[in-house]
Each structure stands twice: as C-alpha cells, then as structure tokens.
C-alpha cells in the first residue's frame, strides 16, 4: 500500500535536488531510444558532453544558446508566479526582434551609446506591448490569456513574414525574405573574438538577477507573489490586483522581447522568420524546470542549452537523430512535474494491516 502524507514546505536542498534527480532520470530513460538506434549510451552521452563542454567553442556555443532561453524562461517564470499564463513568449520574441530591426537598420543614425540602448528598449517595449493586449483582455473582460497569448504567436509570426516580404525586406537580399542587416552601432558586442557569444548573455544574466531582486525584495514583487498565490485575499487586502497583472504582463513580454533583441542584434545580425527554433515554448519548460525561480531559470536554461547543443554535435557523429534533445528535454519536464508530487507529499510504502494504515478514499 502506498500512502501520501502532506509535507511541510520543502527545504532548499530538496528544491534543488529534485530537478537534478529529474534530469538524471530523464537521461536514463533516453538511453532506451539511443540503444535502439544502435549506439552505446555512454558513447552518445560522452559525445553530447563533449559537444556542449568539450572545447571553448562548444562551451560558448552552449552559452549562446542559453541566452535567449534564460530570457524566455524569465518571461514564463515571472508571469506564472502571478498565475498569468503567458504562452506567447515566442510571438513576443519576434515582436522584440522586429522592433530591434526597425530601429537598428538605418532609420536612426546615432553612435552605439545612443543607438544600442534604443534598440534594446524598443525590443523590450514591443514584447511588453504584445503582452499588454491579452493582459488587458484578462483584467477587463476575463478573457482566458492562455488562448489569446497562444494564438497571438501565429498572428505575430505571420505579421513578421509579411513585413519581411514587404516593407522591411532587404533590397540587397536577392529576394530572400529577410531584413536589412543591423548597423554596427546597433549590434551587441561580441564577448570573445572568433566566437559567436555576444552581449545578449550579459543582458540575460542581469535580467535574472533583477527579477530575483524584484520578486524577493520589493513591494511590486510582494504584490506579484500575493496575487499569484491568492488573488482573492490580495484583493481583500487592498492590493492593486489588476495593476499587478498589467505590470507582470509588460515585464514578461519585455523579457521575451529582449530574447528577440539578443538573437538579431547579437547573433544573426538580421531578421528572418526562422529566427527562433521555439525559444518561446522552450522558455516554459525552462521556467517549470526552475520551479519558477529566476535564478533557477539560469541553471535550467544552461541545462537545456547543453542538451540541445550537445545533441546536435552527437547526431553529427552518430546515427542518433538530434530529435533526441527534444526527447530528453520533454522527459525532464515530465519528471519534474511528477517530482512536484514528492515536494508536496511524503510517500510511504506501508504493509497493509499495520496499525497505522490510514487510507482515505
């Protein structure tokens, strides 16, 4: 007989231990399809580790991949903390990228000290504004934001394609649907020569720390936590529930917008409609793996980035498809969600017929 006992709030060790255990279980489970593909599991994982950490190039590639994941992870984490279900980080990322391109491709001519902050601000503002609509619909009319944010992703992606094949198409692009390149003054600085790693990572780290401080130490953070944990009591206590949702919506969208800025102004240099391989959606996984903790988001994003980069590298050397990365990430998420049960309940195996059995049915 198995029985569940509610437990006291989990200790910090347990909060850290459980996602780690979940990741390990996911890796163990992923061994099955690897073996089925005819590859030795240890070889495959060895190659993956090498692909993510084996050289300075591999390591910086992993960090480059982590930067947008940290930001979209933060977008999901802060929104989910307030129980504002923003599933639209993908669209907000593209909106941020589009705004960065609009500002940074020659429309404004200014030195980097002026232009770069403008590009960053424009991207953040665009992401935030995209999220403002669903948030207002939620607070004013009670429209479910899961639906509106999710569907806006497609609207925005199509809008970006329209712009890239119309007004914002690069006249020198030989007809490819891509934007003009960013000006040098609008480009995020490289962090290392001959590597792709860029200033977007610094923005991501700074954002994680800023949101950590916001949630832990400020009145706004207090209000976000209170609204998220019990909106009814927050309203009764006179907290500005609607204003909090709007603040959170703007902030969440801004984080996703910054992810878009990093990708165009740091990595690609111009905008195409395949800028993001689903960073917005992966951000949700990152946030859940991190237990919605802003600092945890950094670690979870690094983990997922190393899985993706490592799997890419491994699939080039073996017959295992790089879809394995998606599999591992998905299984880690499932394991973390299941392990949430272990955080809330103590599970005991008891023999029936002992004098302490207490099933409730």
């Amino acid at each position: 007989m198995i029985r569940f006992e509610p437990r006291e709030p989990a200790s910090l060790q347990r909060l850290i231990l459980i996602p780690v255990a979940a990741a390990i279980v996911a890796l163990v489970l992923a061994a099955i399809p690897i073996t089925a593909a005819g590859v030795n599991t240890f070889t495959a994982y060895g190659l993956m580790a090498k692909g993510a950490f084996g050289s300075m190039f591999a390591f910086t590639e992993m960090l480059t991949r982590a930067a947008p994941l940290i930001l979209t992870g933060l977008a999901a984490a802060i929104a989910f903390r307030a129980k504002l279900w923003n599933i639209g980080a993908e669209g907000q990322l593209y909106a941020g990228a589009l705004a960065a391109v609009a500002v940074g491709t020659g429309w404004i001519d200014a030195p980097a000290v002026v232009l770069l902050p403008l590009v960053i601000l424009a991207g953040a503002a665009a992401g935030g504004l995209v999220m403002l609509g669903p948030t207002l619909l939620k607070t004013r009319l009670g429209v479910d934001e899961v639906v509106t944010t999710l569907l806006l992703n497609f609207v925005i992606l199509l809008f970006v394609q329209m712009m890239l094949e119309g007004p914002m198409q690069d006249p020198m692009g030989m007809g490819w649907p891509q934007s003009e390149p960013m000006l040098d003054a609008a480009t995020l600085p490289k962090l290392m020569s001959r590597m792709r790693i860029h200033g977007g990572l610094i923005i991501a780290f700074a954002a994680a720390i800023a949101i950590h401080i916001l949630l832990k130490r400020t009145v706004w953070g207090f209000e976000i936590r209170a609204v998220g944990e019990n909106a009814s009591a927050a309203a009764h206590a006179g907290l500005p529930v609607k204003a909090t949702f709007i603040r959170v919506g703007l902030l969440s969208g801004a984080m996703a917008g910054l992810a878009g800025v990093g990708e165009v102004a740091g990595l690609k240099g111009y905008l195409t409609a395949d800028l993001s391989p689903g960073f917005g959606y992966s951000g949700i996984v990152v946030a859940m793996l991190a237990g919605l903790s802003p600092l945890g988001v950094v670690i979870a994003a690094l983990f997922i980035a190393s899985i993706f980069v490592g799997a890419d590298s491994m699939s080039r050397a073996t017959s295992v498809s790089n879809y394995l990365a998606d599999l591992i990430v998905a299984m880690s998420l499932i394991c973390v969600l299941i392990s949430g049960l272990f955080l809330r309940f103590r599970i005991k195996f008891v023999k029936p017929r002992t004098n302490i059995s207490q099933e409730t049915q």
Partner: protein
Amino acid sequence: MTTVSAAPIVLQLTQITKRFGSFAANEDVSLTLRRGEILALLGENGAGKTTLMNILFGHYVADEGNVEIAERTSGTLNALPAGQPNAALDAGIGMVHQHFTLAENLTALDNILLGTEKLSAMTSSRTAARQRLDDLMRRSGLTVDLDARISTLSVGEKQRVEILKALYRDARVLVLDEPTAVLTPQESDTLFETLKTLAAEGLAIIFISHKLDEVIAASHRIMVLRLGKKVADQPTEGSTKLQLAELMVGKSVPQSTRSEQAAGPLLLTLKQASAGEGRTALHAVDLELFSGEILGIAGVSGNGQATLARALSGLEPLTAGQLQLDGKDLSGSNARKMIDAGFARIPEDRHKDGIVGPMSVAENLTIETIRAPENQRFGFLKFGAIAERARQAIKAYDIRCQGDKAPARLLSGGNIQKIVLARTLDAAPKVVLAAQPSRGLDVGATADVHRRLLDARARGAGVILISEDLDELMRLSDRIAVIHRGHLSAAEKTETLDRSTLGLKMAGHGFHGDTGEAA
C-alpha cells in the same frame, strides 16, 4: 427514557483509535447506541466528532477498535467491514452531511432514488417508490414536494430530502452532522420534533453539534469528545449547559459580555444601498452605525450578508444608494480606499480572503499596509522593520506559530483569525466589519475574537457584527438588525429583543410590510 435504555443495541463502536501521523484524532472512543435513542455528540471543532463519524461511515479506517452493527432480523451484533461506505449504507447507516449532497438540477424524487436502482434495471418503478415515500412522509411528518427541483427548495426542505433519502434506504442509524448550522431557530425546532418522532418509531439517531442549547433540548444522551478522547457519556437529564461547556473545553472560559456604554456620534450610514444581483443581492438597505457600539446583523446564511460585507469591504460596488463615513461619501471606494478611510474588515472566509497561505505570517501581517512608509522605502521592503513588528503582533495577539517566517497556511483557523485581527485592529480603525468572525473557531479562539471586538468598541470604534449565531449576537450587540432576502430590518436595541422574535424575522416575518415591497 427507561424504555430507551432497555432497548436492544443497534450500533456499537469499541475502543476506536485513529491517528494522523502523531496526532490522535480519536483515542480509545467507545459508543453504544440503542434503538430509538437520540445521542448528541458534543465537542469543539477538532475534537474528533467528524472523524469518528467518518470511521463509522467507512470513509476512514480506524487504526484500532471496531464497529459492530446489529443484524436486521436477529439483532446479533456483527462487525462492519472497515473502510467500505457501501457496506455501511447496506447495513442501514444513513448520514446527513452539513453540506448537502443533492443534485440541484434534479427533483427531490430523483435525488432520493439516485443510487438505489440497479443499473441493469430497464425501467424505474417510480410509482412504487412514490407510494413508499408518501407513507414515510406521513409517518415521520417530513413533508416535501417530491416533484420540486432541489434548486427551488429552501435549506430546511433540502435537509428533509436528505433525511428522507436515508430513510428510504431503510436507515436504522441516522447521523446528522451539525444539522442546525443553516436553519432558523424555528426550522431547528421543527427538525428536532421530527427527530423525536423518528426516534419514537425506533430509529437510532446521532447528531453532531457544538450548540449546548439544542443538545440539551433534543437528545436522550450526550457524549462529549475533547481532543479525540471521550470525556463524558451521560443522560441528558441532569446535564447543565455550564457543566457541558466545561467538559467540552476542559477549562472554564470566561465569556466576554459587553458593559454599558453610551454610543457616540454617528459614524457610518448606508442610504438606500443596493448591490449585487441574484438571490444574494442587497436591496435598498438603510443602516446607521454609531461610534462605540456593536451593531449585530442577524440572518440565515445566504440572505445577502456576504454582499453587504463585500460592499462594506470595498469589493462590491453599490448599484444604487450611498455609503458615508463621518459625512464623507465613500460609495465608489475600492478595498484600498476603505482601509485608508479607517475600515477594519474581517472576512467571512478567512482562508480564501484573509490570508495568502504560502506567504509567511509576517507577510500576511503586513499585506494591508505594505506600501506604508514604515514597510518600504523607494519600493524596497524594510525586512527588519516588518519582522520586528510581526514579532510584536505575534506576541500581542498570541498567534501560535513557528515564528514570523512560517507559512500562514500551516496555522490553525483560530490563529489565522488572529493574524487578520492583528493586522486590521492594530491600525485603530474607526469601523470594524466582522463577518462571521467566530465561525469554525473553538471556544477559546471565539472568546478571544469577542474580546477584541469589545475592546474596539470600548475604544470608540463602530463594529458591524454579521453572524448566524444568535447567542453571539445577543451577547455582544448593542443593537440588532435582521437581514432577509437582501432587505435589512430597522435595528432594535438588544434588550427589547428575544430569540423567538429574531427567529421569526430571520424567517422573513414582518419584512414585506416594513420594506413596502415583495422580496
């Protein structure tokens, strides 16, 4: 009573012990119930009454001890299989829960028949069922319109359907969990008459209660539980309220009563105020509250009290009329403005509206004033000051918790209420709105709440006390108004009122004439 004590035993619980972790909800409790007997199970909240009944009904399995029920025909006692509600039902144990388990969109007849017919039966034999029910109703005096939808029935009628449901299943033991919590005094009297009739016919009845008056009025025997242990099992004859109260609480609790105090100037007025919609709406309510008085609002649950409380809390806008404090109009105010204007609001549902469970005791103590300069600077929280004041409040209000950082959800109901009291009353409010402030609290915590309200009154605050407990209202209030279907009667001095007049008003008598419109 001699006939009862000689009657055959129907139900026997022997040395029941039930532990949740290290906490013993029931410890070595034995109980014998005879045919035709009404047993009152008395105890504070958390004394283990409901746990015991859940064991009887098979919802829980006892760690030790067993339940035996008499064979229908022979009368020999057989052990009831543990943990099987169906076995309990088949053996003839019927339960009427505090919150009814009726499908609102079905008729009374449908609800009674639900679950009694075989799935494989192609047709339902309504006519036979109806005949049996008519017969049952005639014998017991429980009359209900069998074809009425449950949603159209009053609370008292719904309860009758629940009892009929149990009787239809040939219940020999009927368990009622706090049956009078939702009834008017008159409805309660009718219920107890019915129970006595049923008992005279041979039904054995257990009713759970913490109201001493009804326990003494309606039972043959009283069993008192305290902290999971049986502390008394005695005939009702010769039991006194005082003695039972002491058995229940274990110590004598001094009850606060108000002292004479002249009311001060007019503080708060509601003029023709309406709010909300539907069954719980408030219609053109007039109310005056003076400084230094407690104004009681009596009424059966669901008659607009919640809307009144929400309107006075700034959570529900008035659709018509005015709300004024000290002559200043507050009609369109939100919760924030009401707090700033000097309202202390004690919500009816303290878990849902009173605290943010996962946040700490300190955070819950500060939540209403988090933006005040003593709690923040430039938007950053002053942790030291917040924790320091929380520790003072924990001491001053005797909040039992594992320190100011403990999550509030781990606290008991009484201590959660103390958090709410501490944060609202500490600001020396002008108006205190207390909605069902002692609901679900034990005697000690209730006394504490009462004392705080009286302290506020002595300090000159005006207190609005919304309650369903007439004893509480009559002891604390200077004046009492009755709310019925959203209409509020004129408040009258408590000295001029008695329970039966209030009861009649709670049932709606005299309202249509007073308000000049049909409810």
